[in-house]
């Protein structure tokens, strides 16, 4: 009798079933830092999209008469040596950072996933060639690799994206390779093969969807590193060069006037740091929200 009532009580007190999406949202919005990150990223996206409306001045053509102006009501963050408004360049720089971050991630993740998938699924000689090549690339620090590739390609937005894509590609390929190897061993893959499904169908309909959550987490966490690396390249003068608005090159330009106009260097650096921090926080949040091992704990 007691046993029965306990069971009944357990049944009635069982938590209501929540959908995966509801749980994802709840865990994601639980931490204040994740919300802070999301706010920063929203501001970044708004600045990037509405840059022409938000920027108070021309980011590319300055007024030489106002060269190196101190912060004032007219120029909130002052002007650089060419008389260009720093705040406007900062707002347009958000565009550069976002474009480089997202396009690089899409290229690197897409190609890396394909390479890892093929290497892991087919194995043998393809696996050896692809993964050894990835090892060769991975043995090198990301910034140095991007520096060498940029040296070959030259500066400019497009070339920075290619350089950073190649530099971050091995990470994606390696993770995807590992995931493919583990997903491939599942019974449903065997069942698919027994039913006569083609390799393409098994790879893209069964393996890829099951590897997406960790790949999404990796991509979000990589976004911050990519933006940091782009800033590094632009700082060295190899990435995006003035008059193009990139935060890294703005830090370098401002560095020369550190004594008279420290804000020229400080403001873009702070922007880089905030954005990278925001991507890391959101990445951590998504990781926790998608982690099946934390189900029931968070």
């Amino acid at each position, binding site marked *: 009798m007691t046993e029965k009532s306990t069971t009944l009580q357990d049944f009635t007190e069982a938590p209501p079933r929540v959908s995966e999406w509801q749980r994802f949202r709840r865990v994601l919005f639980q931490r204040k830092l994740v919300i802070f990150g999301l706010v920063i990223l929203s501001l970044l996206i708004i600045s990037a999209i509405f840059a022409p409306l938000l920027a108070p001045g021309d980011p590319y053509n300055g007024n030489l008469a106002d060269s190196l102006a101190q912060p004032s009501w007219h120029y909130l963050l002052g002007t650089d040596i060419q008389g260009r408004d720093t705040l406007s360049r900062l707002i347009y720089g958000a565009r550069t950072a976002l474009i480089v971050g997202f396009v690089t991630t899409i290229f690197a993740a897409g190609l890396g996933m394909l390479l890892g998938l093929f290497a892991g699924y087919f194995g043998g000689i393809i696996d050896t060639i692809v993964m*050894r*090549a990835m*090892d*060769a690339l991975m*043995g*090198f*620090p*990301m*910034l*140095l690799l991007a*520096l*060498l*590739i940029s*040296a*070959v390609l*030259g500066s400019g937005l497009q070339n920075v994206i290619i350089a950073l894509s190649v530099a971050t590609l091995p990470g994606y390929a390696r993770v995807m390779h590992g995931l493919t190897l583990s997903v491939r061993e599942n019974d449903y893959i065997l069942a698919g093969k027994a039913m006569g499904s083609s390799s393409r169908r098994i790879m893209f309909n069964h393996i890829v969807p099951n590897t997406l959550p960790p790949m999404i987490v990796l991509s979000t966490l990589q976004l*911050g590193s990519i933006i*940091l690396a782009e*800033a*590094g390249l632009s*700082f*060295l*003068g*190899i990435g995006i060069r003035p008059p193009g608005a990139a935060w*890294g090159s703005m*830090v*370098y330009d401002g*560095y020369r006037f*550190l*004594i008279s106009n*420290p804000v020229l*260097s*400080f403001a873009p*650096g702070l922007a*880089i*740091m905030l954005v*990278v*921090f925001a991507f*890391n926080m959101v990445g951590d949040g998504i990781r926790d929200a998608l982690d099946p091992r934390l189900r029931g704990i968070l």
Partner: protein
Amino acid sequence: MTTYIIRRLIQGVVILILMSLIVFFAMRLLPGDPLVIFMGQQASSGAMSEEAMAGFRHEYGLDKPIMVQYFTWIGGVFEGHLGKSIYYHQDVGALLRQRFPITLHLGLEAFILSNVIGVLLGVLAGIRRGTWIDAVSTTIANVGVTVPVFWLGILLIYVLGLKFHWLPIYGYTSPFTNFWMSFKQSIMPVFCLAITGMAYTARQTRSAMLEVIRQDYIRTAWSKGLRERTVIMKHALKNSLIPVITLLGIGLGMVFGGAVLVETVFAIPGVGRLLVTSVFSQDYVAVQSSTLVIAAIIIFCNLIVDISYGWFDPRIRYA
């Protein structure tokens, strides 16, 4: 174990050959001519005659077919000759010998600092979870991962160098020439080089520590009445360091990657600066050879890291 080391060494050589091919041919794809760039930087540019250019081209072996150039270079590398830099007019081996000790000096200090402080912060945050120590350590780790090192360098130069005049703002002095000056000059660059590695190590140590202190053998250690220091240092720390060791190899890469930026900010004549200058001047030989040397060092250190796993975790045995 010996078989494993030999296999890894062979793999390392294959990777190095692959890298040498990639770097060599990639550099040749560059538009522009290194000799023209070099001449352009000389005062008597422009007026260089065709014969003189051909002479230079011959001197640096640039008139030979590309495959011959590759094999001449790589053959030289095996004999210990890294080639002659077009820009510096010096042997690359000699250039690296001058600059490597500088990068190594700062890099090694940064490496030690980042690991000692990183592990310390991680352990404290792990065993005092939820306290102010944890909050401070996590904040430092978050800032360290996100701050652009070149910007941090500029910030430090502004505050410690220009405002308070406590530290010299650029340059490098060997500790054997003037120890005190060398120490003062190295504080800011070493901190900048160490911060990212420190942050990653602290994060990794903290999560590993949290994992380990929940294990049964730690409860046993506590129930035997051992002191906290013994439980943490002898039982928990060694086991929580295993995942941290993986970061040592990556940390080394970070030191070289960071050196490129930090040496630019602080005007330090190290390998990082050499690489940037060589890239700008399209100095084929210098870029190829320094890249190869850096890659060899990283591969060798990663091998040592992998071997050291066995010592830290006797469950790992290499076949």
